[in-house]
């Protein structure tokens, strides 16, 4: 006789999931403001010119840090808090913190908000560390590292209690806990304290790359392998291809970091190795994308009726494009033309927003009404959020990618530097419009969340009656 399964209410701390999502949305607002400020600066329309604390250079770093550590990390922590207990049927470890009246999960929540806020303050005060994507001031690095350790301590125990083979999502999560911890340590401490110069450049390249590939990507695919079968009510098409996807990513992804610094003094044989493993990964990516589209086969109607599924598959569409782009742009031939240009900026936006943030917004679209036990305030606003985001990121990425080609041609033909700036202005204007579309989508979503939250609260009179 089967023993009774634990109930959802005993497994998942729904308030924590909800507040991780809210924190994520707050940081997304800060990030978008930073991006807008830099976009206006490039157009020479910065209304706050000459104000130290509103310097576009400093806000550009808030733009990237708030999105990576504020939005993406918070959204993942919320997602993990929902998925891991439900998949493993065990609660997260969550021991009581001595001296404080909270468990480890909430301690991580507060510690993480503190880390991201302190990072923003440190950057505004001009204390950046010269590590791209790791500009967190060096005095915060150890706290962030401790936070990542606590995340691993909190979420690995329920996975460890699972008997027999693990489900695909859990492979990705388990590996991501280890990788994120190691990647952060490598990127923030090695080039600061242990190696210098060219070798530090190699480490910096690994860090930029692994942060996307070994923190964001595996957690993102973990979400997809969990939510897509549930929403489509059918299993993933091929388990064998899932294995190819995971092990291919695990082997090839960490080997690629140096492709961020091609034609530097880093030894050429290492550059070749990074290029080859990047191209190899494209085959792995194709296998995963194929697997998910084969799963969708027969259910394509869900793309029109099921909004979270549409978010997820739109993200996969951009994932395929961005990875295909990777396989070409990583070659030395392409690098001659497009390195240092806005092509790379377009690529980065397509990866971070077009793929992972789209997935996370889809997850929020699915989970928030379940967390609040209230249907969405407006289905129509949800559609607006999707279309403004999807069109906005597409426009921004393609605009910047095309601009990169022109910039590269201008530079290599030895025209005066001003020529590359003059030709950029119209493209930068289009990018600003695209960014405003994405910001509008964000505002629409925030309004929708707030209204749904207000609807979920009992009206004052009703509450008074209930207590009386």
């Amino acid at each position, binding site marked *: 006789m089967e023993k009774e399964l634990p109930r959802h209410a005993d497994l998942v701390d729904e308030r924590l999931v909800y507040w991780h999502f809210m924190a994520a949305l707050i940081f997304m607002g800060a990030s978008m403001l930073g991006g807008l400020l830099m976009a206006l600066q490039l157009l020479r329309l910065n209304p706050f*010119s000459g104000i130290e604390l509103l310097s576009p250079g400093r806000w550009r770093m808030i733009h990237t840090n708030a999105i990576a550590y504020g939005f993406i990390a918070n959204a993942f922590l919320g997602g993990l808090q929902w998925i891991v207990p439900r998949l493993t049927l065990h609660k997260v470890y969550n021991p009581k913190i001595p001296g404080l009246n909270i468990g480890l999960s909430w301690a991580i929540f507060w510690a993480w908000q503190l880390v991201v806020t302190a990072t923003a303050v440190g950057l505004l005060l001009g204390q950046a560390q010269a590590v791209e994507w790791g500009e967190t001031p060096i005095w915060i690095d150890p706290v962030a590292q401790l936070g990542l350790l606590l995340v691993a301590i909190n979420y690995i125990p329920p996975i460890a209690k699972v008997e027999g083979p693990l489900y695909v999502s859990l492979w990705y999560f388990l590996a991501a806990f280890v990788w994120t911890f190691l990647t952060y340590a*490598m990127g923030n401490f090695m080039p600061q304290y242990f190696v210098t*110069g060219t070798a*530090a450049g190699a480490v910096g390249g690994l860090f930029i790359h692994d942060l996307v590939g070994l923190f964001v990507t595996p957690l993102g695919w973990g979400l997809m392998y969990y939510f897509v079968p549930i929403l489509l009510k059918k299993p993933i098409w091929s388990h064998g291809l899932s294995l190819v996807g995971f092990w291919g990513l695990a082997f090839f992804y960490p080997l690629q970091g140096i492709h961020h610094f091609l034609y530097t003094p880093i030894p050429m044989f290492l550059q070749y190795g990074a290029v080859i493993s990047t191209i190899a990964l494209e085959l792995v990516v194709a296998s995963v994308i194929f697997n998910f589209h084969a799963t969708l086969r027969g259910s394509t109607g869900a793309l029109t009726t099921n909004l979270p599924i549409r978010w997820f598959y739109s993200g996969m569409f951009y994932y395929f494009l961005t990875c295909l782009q990777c396989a070409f742009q990583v070659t030395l031939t392409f690098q*001659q033309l497009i390195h240092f240009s806005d092509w790379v900026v377009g690529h980065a936006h397509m990866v971070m927003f077009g793929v992972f943030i789209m997935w996370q917004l889809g997850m929020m679209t699915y989970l928030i009404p379940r967390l609040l036990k209230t249907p969405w305030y407006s289905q129509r606003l949800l559609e607006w959020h999707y279309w403004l985001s999807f069109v906005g990121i597409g426009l921004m990425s393609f605009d910047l990618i095309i601009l990169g080609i022109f910039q590269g041609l201008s530079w290599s033909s030895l025209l005066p530097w*001003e020529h590359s700036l003059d030709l950029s202005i119209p493209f930068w204007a289009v990018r600003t419009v695209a960014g405003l579309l994405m910001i509008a989508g964000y505002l629409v979503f925030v309004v929708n969340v707030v209204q749904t939250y207000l609807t979920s609260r009992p009206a004052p009179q009703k509450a008074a009656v209930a207590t009386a």
Partner: protein
Amino acid sequence: MLESKVGVLFIAGIGFFGLAFLSNALVPALMYRDLPEQTVEQLLRNNGNLRFQFEDLARRFPDSFTAAYGHPPEGAAEREKWLDTWSQHALQLGHDVYVGEACWHCHSQFVRPVSNEDRRFGPVSKTEEYQNVLQRPVLFGTRRVGPDLSREGGRRSNDWHAVHFFKPTILSIGSPMPEYPWLFNGAADKPNAKGLALITYVQWLGSWLESYPYYEDYQPSPIHGLAEKGKDQK
């Protein structure tokens, strides 16, 4: 194995990461272990180009210079030591401002052997140029909104840089570079300690190369003590 906790945790999680770390991070570190990291003091030893620029700052901005560093001591040897100390200090502070203001997000510091970059900027970058504390963490950069700066030193005068940091569009019409008035005391000819330091840092970039251009001839500074340099050395 492929779906087990041990396999995922130890082979994929730690094993593959370790393999990549060994081959991609430790190999270059070991290859360059014979190129020791230079300190700021070692970098400036015998760097006449940088000293020239630093004394030139004293000549062009005597009030700012005195406000930032005080008056030079009497005696040639003491003054030499004084200038050494403060130029090292300025170089380090200038580097910190460069990092804190995120200059490195719009300006790279390496010249590639392709796309005519050596014709636009100067000699292709070599490893030994980066083996110093001011490249910790390394400032290669990944984006060029503005030009590469690794050969910028000596190309333009200190005056030019002061005005440019104060309000770039005065000199580069249409430049999208932000203004940095907080590196000045209200006017372009009054850089504060951070402003002087940032100019020193930019003039240092490439100053170790044979091809470092001398922009203008040396002229003595009006600051008392510094101006008497020639007299003391007789």
